[in-house]
């Protein structure tokens, strides 16, 4: 199943929050998130990996901040994203607005959130992918990503987050539903999760599937 690929651009000073957003995108929403230091620092050439990952990403997420505006790499990545015509979803970490060629774009204001900001950022990104007309062509892959997260969940807290999003979606296709039902039967962190009754109810009421 093809999933959403996201590229997170950030300044080094914001790497902690960036890394946590990446983890939430991957674990709670099944999005393949590229975040350069962790993913490239040790082995492959850093610049080459960016040339490889950025043009093939579905969504470019710049983490806008005071540090971001000063980061040469982060700003050059913005230029690449524009040149490769990637969809851009800016997130503002400290109230700073996007500048330069993306100055007309609005940034999602993460700095106003005080409970688990990385999870809130990942949730906002996922909900935008699911609901914005701009990302309509990515909708099937957005849902594939969530199904993948459920199928691979090995943490009860993650399963709770995945299910709370899953029960909002009313148009999973047959393949996706088959995988969801398989997870309910076979994955411990889904089978024994406190949210499972609400998922079962959703499957029955929306799709007529008894599990």
């Amino acid at each position, binding site marked *: 199943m093809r999933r959403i690929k996201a590229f997170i651009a950030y300044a080094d000073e914001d790497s902690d929050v960036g890394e946590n957003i990446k983890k939430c995108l991957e674990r709670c929403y099944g999005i393949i998130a590229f975040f350069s230091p962790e993913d490239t620092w040790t082995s492959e050439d850093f610049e080459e990996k960016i040339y490889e990952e950025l043009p093939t990403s579905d969504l470019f997420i710049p983490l806008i901040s005071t540090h971001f505006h000063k980061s040469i790499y982060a700003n050059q990545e913005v230029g690449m994203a524009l040149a490769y015509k990637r969809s851009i979803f800016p997130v503002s970490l400290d109230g700073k607005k996007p500048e330069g060629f993306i100055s*007309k*774009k*609005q940034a*999602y*204001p993460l700095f106003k959130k005080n*409970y*688990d900001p990385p*999870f*809130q950022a990942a*949730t*906002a990104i996922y*909900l*935008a992918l699911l*609901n*914005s*007309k701009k990302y309509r062509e990515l909708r099937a892959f957005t849902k594939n990503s969530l199904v993948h997260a459920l199928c691979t969940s*090995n*943490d*009860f*807290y993650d399963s*709770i*987050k995945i299910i*709370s*999003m899953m029960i*909002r979606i009313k148009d999973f296709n047959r393949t996706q539903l088959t995988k969801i039902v398989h997870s309910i039967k076979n994955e*411990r*962190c889904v089978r024994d*999760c*406190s*949210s499972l009754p609400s998922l079962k109810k959703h499957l029955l009421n929306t799709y007529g599937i008894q599990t």
Partner: protein
Amino acid sequence: MVSVKSISRDEQKKEQEKVEKIVNETYKDVMAFLRKVETSEKKVR
């Protein structure tokens, strides 16, 4: 094999309530944000 950390039902329920609240609030927030983005993009055009 991946080891799974066991969590009591009570703890799970508490987390579930928190998560549902965050997702509901973020949904309202994001929808308002997307409307704002659409309006500003129309103005630019």
